[in-house]
């Protein structure tokens, strides 16, 4: 039994420190996933915590049929989508922020002086993040899982519980939409 499986087993039997170990293994990944989904650190923290509360509450129902990482990402995806549906905030806030040139300038001037190249690079990444956050949830989740967190097509299919063909087409369309959005923003 590997270390993670041992923690899962112990946590299922009520071992709080084992659950804390599981949290420490996944907290940063899930927080970053939520951050890319929302483009807001505040929302990301709140959502990531909600994910771990759900994990804690449902740990006994985790049978080990799928990988634990897949299971926890599925909870994260569902939690983010639920939030999106509830307030439709994930898209609008992110896009407004990304398109607001002043906000980029404020962020840039408030930092220490940077070489011009660095400034341009930083601005480009800021816009890229805004474009990702502006995609619809099904698209941004595949971009995050595939291109940021390097999950395979098969793992993404398991997380989202959709056929492999759907994952392929979603990744393809999501990347195309991201290219279009970025091109439009940089023009």
């Amino acid at each position: 039994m590997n270390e993670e499986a041992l923690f899962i087993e112990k946590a299922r039997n009520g071992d709080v420190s084992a659950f804390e170990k599981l949290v420490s293994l996944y907290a940063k990944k899930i927080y970053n996933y939520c951050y890319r989904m929302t483009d807001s650190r505040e929302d990301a923290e709140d959502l990531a915590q909600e994910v771990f509360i759900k994990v804690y509450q449902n740990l006994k129902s985790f049978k080990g049929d799928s990988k634990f990482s897949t299971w926890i990402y599925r909870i994260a995806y569902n939690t983010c989508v639920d939030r999106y549906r509830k307030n439709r905030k994930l898209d609008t806030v992110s896009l407004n922020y990304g398109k607001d040139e002043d906000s980029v300038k404020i962020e840039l001037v408030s930092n220490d002086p940077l070489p011009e190249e660095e400034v341009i690079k930083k601005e480009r990444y800021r816009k890229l993040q805004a474009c990702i956050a502006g995609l619809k949830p099904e698209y941004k989740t595949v971009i995050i899982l595939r291109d940021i967190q390097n999950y395979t097509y098969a793992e993404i299919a398991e997380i989202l519980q959709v056929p492999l063909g759907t994952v392929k087409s979603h990744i393809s369309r999501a990347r195309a939409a991201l290219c279009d959005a970025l091109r439009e923003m940089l023009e």
Partner: protein
Amino acid sequence: MDCRVVQELISPYIDGELDRERARQLEAHVESCSECRQRLEEMKAVVQMVGALEEKELPDDFADRLQTRLEAEQVTGMIHRKRVGFSSWMKWVGMAAAAAVIVLAIRVLSLNGLMYTSPQEKGRTESAAPENMSKSFVADSRDEGGTGPSDTQADAADKQQELDRGDVGASEYTSETSEQAQEADGYIKSDKVELMVQDVCINPQTLMIRAVQHGIDVVDQTQDSITLKVTSIEQRKALYRELELLGVVKEVGTNFESDTVTIVIVEQE
């Protein structure tokens, strides 16, 4: 292979998801088609850029805040479970109340001299009757029978010792008279107390968290009160100590035989 098909295949091509034949066809097409070549280069660059996005650090107090939320969740879950089992709990309350009525009836009869028990009979009664009820009966008859004050004090001291050890079950409270309960200080004696607070932040949730730390179960909760199930004197003492830290505790209950305590939060001006 036409442009539309090629553009659909660019993404899996970047990920190495195309079979060798298809990949070869796509490569042949983009060599001769500048638009598709540009599209491929653009998508490759974007994928590379996305992959280079920096990972954000977790907020410093992430673990602490999660811990707090988990504790609150555990408590809420417990209330939910308690409410599910409410009907069976009520059944036990009914049985306890019936037992209390019987005990009181026996006391009234012995006070009125309608029932006389000789010291010898007392011993027999004690061995024959259920233990809780016999203790109550013997203690009460001893008081009424004019045994010396030293006996009464010794009995109270014995009782207090039992209480202090925390090994007294809820049913044994039925044997304790309200006068005896009021004598001992430093714990909650009746079924209802008022907690006079000046801090508006103190609410039933605050009390719930503190109660759970002492293994005290929550029975019910309203906007300004909480009902807890206390099964030992230790829990009554612990609860009293916690309440004293939050405000002024005032006993307002009249039932000294209940195994639940309702704490009503009263904000002082």
